[in-house]
């Protein structure tokens, strides 16, 4: 089965976004699992994953039923707002004006919090409410951003299924690696991935919202092959400028 450039962009964006969010959730799950109870942590992960899957299954078809013009304006606008948030934070982190995500530090903090929280979890097979709740919350909160991207990207191209598969592959990969090494994935280049996702969300958002507003891009879909690198280069230039001009920050 062949994949168009737009579909490849969709799958890649969802995969990268999901990988980043899964790495962040994994850190918390590993911490509470190690200190409290693996079984209860995994129940929490399962419950949250199920809730997220139900959300995609329920909202995906509903969004796909909206007429394409209106859908492109709404989804394009949302992707633009969302993508610009991701991109701004990634540029600030790359320029050294915002702290990078520190998975080892977060793991140490979560581990300490889990140790101090409440009573001893008891026997290994006993249900531990703390481990369940913290794991459920972590996966649910990190997963909501992925669900948003899966739904908006997927519905616009009528490929919610493809987006969901890309997200599932990312979760499986991160889970497998995380449980194999039994440590937070601190060496994953999170900010570079967030930067890439921000570029993709913003580019597709600009493309679709303009089309939804009645514009026709020169070259049609091929315009994306110009928008994406131009935005990437402009963003890299912004990183360079902010790095060289720290006075702006004061």
């Amino acid at each position, binding site marked *: 089965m062949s994949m168009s450039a737009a579909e490849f962009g969709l799958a890649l964006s969802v995969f990268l976004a999901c990988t980043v969010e899964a790495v962040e959730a994994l850190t918390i799950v590993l911490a509470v699992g190690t200190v409290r109870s693996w079984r209860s942590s995994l129940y929490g992960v399962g419950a949250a994953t199920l809730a997220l899957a139900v959300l995609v299954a329920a909202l995906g078809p509903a969004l796909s039923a909206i007429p394409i013009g209106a859908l492109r304006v709404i989804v394009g606008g949302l992707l633009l707002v969302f993508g610009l*948030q991701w991109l701004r934070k990634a540029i*600030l982190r790359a320029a050294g004006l915002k702290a990078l995500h520190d998975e080892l530090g977060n793991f140490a903090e979560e581990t300490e919090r889990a140790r101090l929280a409440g009573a001893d979890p008891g026997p290994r097979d006993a249900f531990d409410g703390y481990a369940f709740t913290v794991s459920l919350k972590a996966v649910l909160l990190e997963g909501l951003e992925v669900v948003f991207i899966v739904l908006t990207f997927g519905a616009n191209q009528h490929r919610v299924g493809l987006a969901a598969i890309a997200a599932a592959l990312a979760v499986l990969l991160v889970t497998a690696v995380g449980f194999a090494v039994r440590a937070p994935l601190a060496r994953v280049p999170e900010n570079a991935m967030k930067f890439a996702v921000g570029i993709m969300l913003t580019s597709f958002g600009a493309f679709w919202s303009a089309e939804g*507003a009645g514009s026709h891009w020169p070259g049609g879909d091929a315009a994306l092959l110009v928008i994406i690198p131009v935005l990437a280069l402009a963003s890299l230039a912004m990183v360079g400028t902010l790095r060289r001009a720290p006075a702006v920050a004061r």
Partner: protein
Amino acid sequence: MTVLVAIWDFVVGDDWRTAAGVVVAISATAALQGAGVTAWWLIPLAVLALLVRSLLVAARRG
């Protein structure tokens, strides 16, 4: 109400001016197209301007 606040925080984040700028850019594009003016260039320009503004504000805030 709490749900609406949560949705607002989730989608718009801490910079509502960027979200407002996106709405203005899309509306202006639709208005120009409606008047028969080719306006595909407006949103990309608005995106760059909004990104630069938002970065400068965030950088100054520190």
